[in-house]
């Protein structure tokens, strides 16, 4: 390979590619020579955390990944689960945090585009998008700009591409001020008979480049995503890609059509690290090599050098291995949709990635060195929990001012319980997200069973859209989906917090009547090179693994986003809360039997499934919002109780007893009650029994395994008999649903402690975000 001449690099040039000097030495050892500039760039992106998980891989190994319904686990573009009746579902979550911090609109838009490609690359038609978003405090003008830009970007891409955005979660906390989190999850229904995999095979088979053109946009995005953000990051704007959802829509149709011909041997999305990643991963997975000629690649700019071709992250591009002799068939399909499709290379026996440019070899690297046999760092776990956690755990409810029946004095000012309730309803994290989801087309494709805001999880009907269509009424199956993570819990106690994220996701699915099936996770953390960052990551992974085992929801894949820290002007890192977002899918057997969270009829009986007491103010929204305190031990997960309560809820829905169900999460029982009232436009009168704990704990304390349900009075007896048999004493009758004129009324031991007009509560909750954007 005389064309590759050894070139020494300065330490800065090596660092600029995101590589350490040890990693550089390893590259030289593997190649037996110095890399050239293009090769150095290829190693830089492929050995980034984003592509090779060098810090997290040892931790991810402990996840349960198999199960009766799991058809494809981690390692492919997306996981696939069996939904029965021949229906197979692909799903995956991915982050676009760093690009969204720098350019919110395009950063978020291309995040949606990227996760959709992971789905249709498998041969599945995307049928739903969810988002998990984190922002700083909306009083900050910069945060408002990021927030509105991200929402507009998601809307722009999802709406145009014609995939409904059906659900998600949005949290606001100063911990995310300079580093928002934008995680997008996509779900698809398999349309091809075989699941399309990414391993190249068939020596001599042509390699096709399809989709959009290649330009200099998004250069080195993967290494950018794996570095800490600083003020200078704004100068990295070329590292953010620009999306074209119209082109992606055409790409979806063309790819699915192409896969159905049977002429596609393997396919891979060009996401992070573009051509470099797709060629090396396809080659490494197939145990073969790929030779690719850059002169064949359609470009949007002139004068690009190999380094730029190889590291470009231009959007809406894919790489196919086609069956020899059938390439023209595929090219015709893409041209019909106005897309590029060119033969740019071939599969070779020698397991290397060989890049040709202007008749010469521009790069030549063993495929496994880039994609498989990559560095792994086993880091040392701190001997004991870090000081910040130990200090937080010392907090107890006794540290709060005393409560009375009327209210609590906060820094000398007495606040009634009604005021506290209204303040919490006005907290953007708890408040209605209508301002957000109203900008997303959530009904396109005509399968959305539960609309955003009306239930604890999204439900989409599994109706094939092409081929075997028929009477829509014959399609009863649906998928329920949710994304969840209370990152304050995870910050305070990564192991318990991560367990609770899984438990809550499963609970949300159970609340609509779905059976939880499988998980895709997005690990958003700070720097693993710092002891606290690694402790948070390791402990959270341990919690996720245990919870996914306990709740029988294996992990089928996901994404790792590290280095989520903002450097302030003095260069001090400001870490985000560790945020392991859990995306979970569940099976709905009959879409006619799903439930929302709002009350349905006056006179219905209200019950709490689970315990009235097993709760805490540690890590609660009440403690953070009312007392400006982030401390305590967050709720501890009781898996046995969690399973029993969720099973009772699902059974109650299937039996037709339960008419509404809502998880008690942030803000505790009082907030869950108010939300069911607002959502159903009906008040309620509720009586809580004699106190065992403080009044604020009873009202606003948080804990797992608690679901608020309503049941028609005539079903009450059968329902209670069932509850006694299955939950023993672990349930409580609370009161009755009222009319649209009835207030939200809570009595404790016979004394009224909260009485709020429905309209007042509804306005606080409904307008909280809009008010802050107007201000």
């Amino acid at each position, binding site marked *: 390979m005389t064309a590759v001449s050894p070139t020494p690099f300065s330490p800065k040039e090596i660092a600029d590619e995101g590589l350490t000097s040890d990693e550089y030495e390893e590259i030289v050892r593997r190649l037996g020579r110095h890399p050239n500039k293009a090769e150095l760039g290829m190693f830089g992106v492929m050995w980034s955390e984003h592509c090779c998980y060098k810090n997290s891989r040892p931790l991810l190994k402990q996840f349960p990944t198999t199960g009766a319904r799991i058809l494809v686990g981690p390692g492919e573009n997306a996981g696939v689960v069996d939904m029965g009746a021949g229906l197979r579902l692909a799903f995956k979550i991915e982050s676009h945090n760093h690009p969204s911090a720098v350019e919110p609109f395009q950063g978020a838009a291309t995040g949606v585009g990227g996760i959709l490609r992971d789905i249709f690359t498998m041969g599945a038609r995307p049928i739903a998008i969810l988002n998990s978003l984190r922002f700083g405090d909306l009083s900050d003008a910069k945060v408002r700009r990021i927030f509105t830009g991200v929402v507009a970007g998601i809307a722009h891409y999802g709406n145009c591409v014609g995939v409904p955005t059906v659900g998600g979660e949005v949290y606001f906390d100063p911990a995310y001020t300079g580093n928002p989190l934008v995680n997008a999850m996509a779900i698809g229904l398999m349309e091809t008979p075989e699941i399309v995999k990414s391993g190249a095979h068939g020596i001599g088979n042509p390699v096709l480049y399809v989709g959009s053109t290649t330009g200099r946009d998004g250069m080195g995005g993967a290494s950018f995503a794996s570095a800490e953000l600083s003020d200078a990051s704004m100068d990295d704007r070329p590292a953010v890609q620009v999306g074209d959802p119209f082109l992606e*829509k055409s790409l979806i149709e063309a790819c699915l059509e192409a896969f159905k011909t049977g002429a596609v041997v393997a396919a891979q999305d060009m996401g992070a690290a573009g051509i470099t990643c797709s060629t090396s991963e396809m080659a490494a997975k197939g145990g073969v090599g790929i030779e690719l000629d850059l002169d064949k690649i359609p470009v949007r700019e002139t004068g690009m050098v190999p380094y730029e071709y190889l590291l470009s992250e231009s959007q809406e591009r894919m790489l196919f291995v086609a069956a020899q002799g059938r390439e023209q068939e595929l090219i015709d399909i893409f041209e019909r949709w106005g897309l590029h499709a060119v033969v740019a290379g071939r599969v070779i026996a020698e397991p290397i990635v060989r890049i040709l440019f202007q008749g010469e070899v521009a790069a030549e690297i063993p495929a496994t060195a880039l994609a498989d046999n990559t560095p792994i760092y086993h880091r040392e776990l701190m001997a004991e929990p870090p000081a910040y956690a130990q200090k937080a755990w010392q907090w107890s409810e006794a540290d709060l001012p005393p409560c009375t029946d009327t209210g609590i004095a906060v820094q000398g000012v007495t606040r009634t319980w009604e005021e506290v309730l209204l303040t919490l309803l006005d907290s953007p994290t708890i408040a209605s997200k209508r301002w957000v989801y109203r900008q997303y087309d959530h009904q396109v494709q005509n399968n*959305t069973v539960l609309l955003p805001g009306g239930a604890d999880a999204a439900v989409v009907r599994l109706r094939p859209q092409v081929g075997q269509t028929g009477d829509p009424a014959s399609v009863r199956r649906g998928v329920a989906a949710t994304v969840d993570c209370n990152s304050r819990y995870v910050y305070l106690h990564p192991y318990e917090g991560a367990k609770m994220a899984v438990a809550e996701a499963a609970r949300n699915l159970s609340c609509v009547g779905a059976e939880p099936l499988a998980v895709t996770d997005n690990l958003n953390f700070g720097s693993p090179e710092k002891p606290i960052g690694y402790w948070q990551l390791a402990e959270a992974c341990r919690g996720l693994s245990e919870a996914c085992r306990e709740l029988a929801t294996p992990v089928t894949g996901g994404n790792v986003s590290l280095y989520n820290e903002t450097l302030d002007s003095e260069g001090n890192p400001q870490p985000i809360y560790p945020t392991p977002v859990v995306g979970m899918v569940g099976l709905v057997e009959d879409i006619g039997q799903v439930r929302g969270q709002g009350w349905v009829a006056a006179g219905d009986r209200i019950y709490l499934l689970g315990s009235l007491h097993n709760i805490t103010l540690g890590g609660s929204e009440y403690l953070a919002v009312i007392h400006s305190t982030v401390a305590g031990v967050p709720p501890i997960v009781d898996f046995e109780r969690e399973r029993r309560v969720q099973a009772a809820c699902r059974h109650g829905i299937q039996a037709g007893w339960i008419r509404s169900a809502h998880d008690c999460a942030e803000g505790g029982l009082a907030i869950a009650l108010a939300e069911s009232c607002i959502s159903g436009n009906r008040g309620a009168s509720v009586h809580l029994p004699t106190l065992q704990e403080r009044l604020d704990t009873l009202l606003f304390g948080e804990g797992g395994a608690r679901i608020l349900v309503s049941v028609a009075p005539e079903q009450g007896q059968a329902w209670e008999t069932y509850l006694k048999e299955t939950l023993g004493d672990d349930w409580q009758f609370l009161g009755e649903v009222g009319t649209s004129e009835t207030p939200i009324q809570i009595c404790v031991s016979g004394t009224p402690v909260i009485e709020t007009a429905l309209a007042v509560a509804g306005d606080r909750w409904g307008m909280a975000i809009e008010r802050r954007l107007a201000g």
Partner: protein
Amino acid sequence: MKFGILVFPGSNCDRDVAMVTRDLLQQPTRMVWHEESDLSDVDVVIVPGGFSYGDYLRCGAIARFSPAMQATIRHAEQGGLVLGICNGFQVLTEAGLLPGALMRNRDLHFICDRVPVRVEQTHLPFTQQYQPAEVITLPIAHGEGCYYADADTLAELEANGQVVFRYCEANGGVSERANPNGSLNNIAGICNRRGNVLGMMPHPERASDAALGSTDGLRMFQSVLSALVGQA
């Protein structure tokens, strides 16, 4: 009775409409690729929602030049029925089949919601199964649905009874509060003078399947069906 649904590369409600005409109403339905120019086998042309050619220039500005739209214009001139929904409405105004234009929503945001709409004309083949002034609830999903026309055109539309749907309160009252996007005169849908071409921003196809909660829009397709069957 055959429906033809135009398919531009960026259409994304074409299959949703087909679900109603072909699967719910069991009518012959043909997907018409934008490069096709023969619509002679089709009784009703539907221009569906979506983003036709990406709509980066102006919604529907490119679509009007497509062979399928040229054929649609001929179909309309011959008195054939044409229904444009959402992006389809935008395309029909760009093609000159309907007057006025659709501009960015008043608050500049895309809006996806369910809104009450009053049926203003019930003699049309599209609306004869509705009661006069009936209030129905239809889904909307658009970023550019603010109907605009100059004062003369607007007066003419009103005088000729060409305003077919109007955004309203739940009780039927027309108010600024009930206007989701800033459309002049709360206009949600209009027809041409002859009454054979209808454009509307709301999505009747999304309110047609009982399994999804509403059938307020289904009656529009049933109206077309009974009108044409009656004619035959």
